[in-house]
């Protein structure tokens, strides 16, 4: 595995090669990724990602907030899949607290989480295709993404930074008619995926730009801690939703698509299949949606209903205490991982028994996936770097935190 160790500072040795800077302001780097490339003609000899342009110190900020105040911060880590981050954080805190979540809240979480995956994959597909010259797909994808964002707005009042999942359940009961709207979307969506596939999968230009490009072997993917479609595209059959289920995912039936070539085309096909599987999970959640409360019965942790708060003394006291003092979490530590659209999203939370987390660490799937970029690109053409970046689906907010 000697070829996987990072190469030290790039200095042109002879006159043969040239150092080229790509980004951070570059439309195809999906945010503020900067790549330092050493090129020989059009061939990439070495590649060094330079990150940190979006570092906001969220982990440090979390240490100064109450547990319930951290939820809105988790949205902002990965702004394309806010609910996955919410889910991972609240699951970790619930594990620390040891509270049980009612089934309806769990199923709602699964449903919203899969809609988030669809949202994220649609943005990925649109921008990835745009990078490689297919403009139309972008417009099609954003058309359906708009529908998903409207669903988010219906449940949480926000299109992107939803903060819908709270410690102990979800923020609110979904509005009347919401499930019908989701059902309507779920009925329409598979034919839209056919449309995207009709534009790309058999398109000779698309196939030539992606097949056999930016290959990654299974051994390298595991050694470099890659996860999600990047790992599965290389033939490793591992999905946290199926293999280490959380939040009631063991009640759902879905296939985990696995590729074997480990190239850009395989990762594209996997994500498109995941779109279809996700909408299947949404339909199962709709069919089997349990009835009952959407918040756990834990008055010291979960905010009371507004109605109760206005009429009952006790509820008002709990509300006041949670807002002003937060809630104390028993001492301990927890690592909770969920399968985000990009791979293993993990939260490591250490509690010292107070109302503020002692340490919150986010394991960003993109940060680890980005490490695969040099081994994908070195020795190949510079035009394929853009395809490789798109295929690992990075979000710089998550990488830099």
């Amino acid at each position: 595995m000697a070829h996987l160790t990072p190469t030290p500072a790039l200095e042109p040795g002879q006159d043969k090669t040239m150092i080229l800077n790509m980004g951070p302001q570059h439309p195809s780097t999906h945010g503020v990724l900067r790549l330092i490339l050493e090129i020989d003609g059009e061939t990439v000899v070495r590649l060094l990602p330079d990150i940190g342009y979006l570092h906001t110190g969220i982990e440090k900020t979390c240490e100064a907030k109450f547990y319930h105040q951290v939820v809105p911060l988790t949205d902002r880590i990965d702004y394309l899949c806010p609910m996955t981050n919410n889910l991972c954080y609240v699951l970790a805190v619930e594990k620390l607290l040891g509270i049980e979540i009612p089934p309806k809240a769990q199923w709602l979480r699964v449903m919203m989480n899969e809609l988030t995956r669809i949202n994220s994959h649609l943005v990925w597909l649109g921008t990835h295709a745009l990078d490689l010259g297919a403009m139309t797909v972008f417009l099609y994808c954003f058309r359906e993404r708009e529908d998903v964002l409207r669903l988010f707005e219906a449940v949480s009042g926000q299109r992107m930074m939803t903060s819908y999942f709270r410690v102990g359940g979800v923020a609110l009961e979904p509005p009347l008619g919401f499930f019908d709207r989701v059902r309507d979307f779920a009925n329409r969506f598979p034919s839209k995926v056919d449309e995207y596939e009709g534009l790309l999968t058999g398109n000779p230009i698309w196939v030539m730009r992606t097949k056999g490009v930016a290959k990654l072997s299974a051994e390298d993917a595991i050694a470099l801690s890659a996860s999600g479609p990047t790992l599965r595209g290389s033939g490793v059959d591992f999905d946290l939703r199926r293999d280490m289920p959380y939040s009631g995912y063991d009640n759902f039936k879905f296939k985990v698509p696995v590729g074997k070539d480990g190239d850009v085309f395989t990762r594209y096909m996997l994500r498109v299949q995941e779109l279809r599987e996700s909408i299947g999970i949404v339909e199962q959640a709709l069919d089997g949606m349990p009835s009952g409360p959407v918040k756990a019965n834990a008055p010291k942790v979960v905010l009371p209903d507004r109605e109760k708060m206005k009429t009952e003394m006790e509820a008002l006291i709990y509300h006041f205490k949670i807002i002003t003092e937060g809630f104390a979490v028993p001492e301990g530590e927890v690592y909770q991982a969920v399968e985000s659209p990009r791979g293993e999203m993990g939260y490591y939370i250490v509690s010292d028994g107070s109302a503020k987390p002692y340490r919150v660490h986010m394991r960003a799937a993109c940060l680890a996936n980005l490490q695969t970029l040099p081994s994908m690109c070195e020795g190949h053409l510079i035009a394929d770097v853009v395809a490789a970046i798109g295929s690992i689906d990075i979000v710089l907010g998550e990488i830099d935190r």
Partner: protein
Amino acid sequence: MALVPAVTDLEQLKGHPAISRLISWNPQSVEGVKFDRDEMTIYVERSALREACALLRDAANCPFNYLSDITCVDWYPSEPRFEVIYHLLSIPNKERVRLKVRLSGETPALESVISVWPGANYFEREIFDLFGVRFSGHPYLRRLLMPENWEGHPLRKDYPVEGYR
């Protein structure tokens, strides 16, 4: 799902594949264990860490072949000040284990595991950047997120959340 007290008795937890593998290799390498909230933590002796990781990665019955994460916690002002935490995952057995190494606050340094998992690269650079823990044997230990000329390590507990230092 009421909380049960953590188990810290080594004798009780000996059956765990990772612990038994480490003890059969070198009993001194395991400083302590903790089983809390369904998660296994093994406190590993500082100098044994890299070899312990390599052993667990290649263990025959339960290979912890995937490095999920490395992170660090600062327990300022108590001593040993830093804990570096390794989250390992066994893809074939679908199991996690957490390795912990305690480091003093004077000159926190530790052997890099980049020779075991090349994917440790960014994780170790991030810890070096934000906590100032050095990893010997890392070929490119430079700041990852903060600017190159930044002074101090922001995630240390004696570094303020707001304002200038």
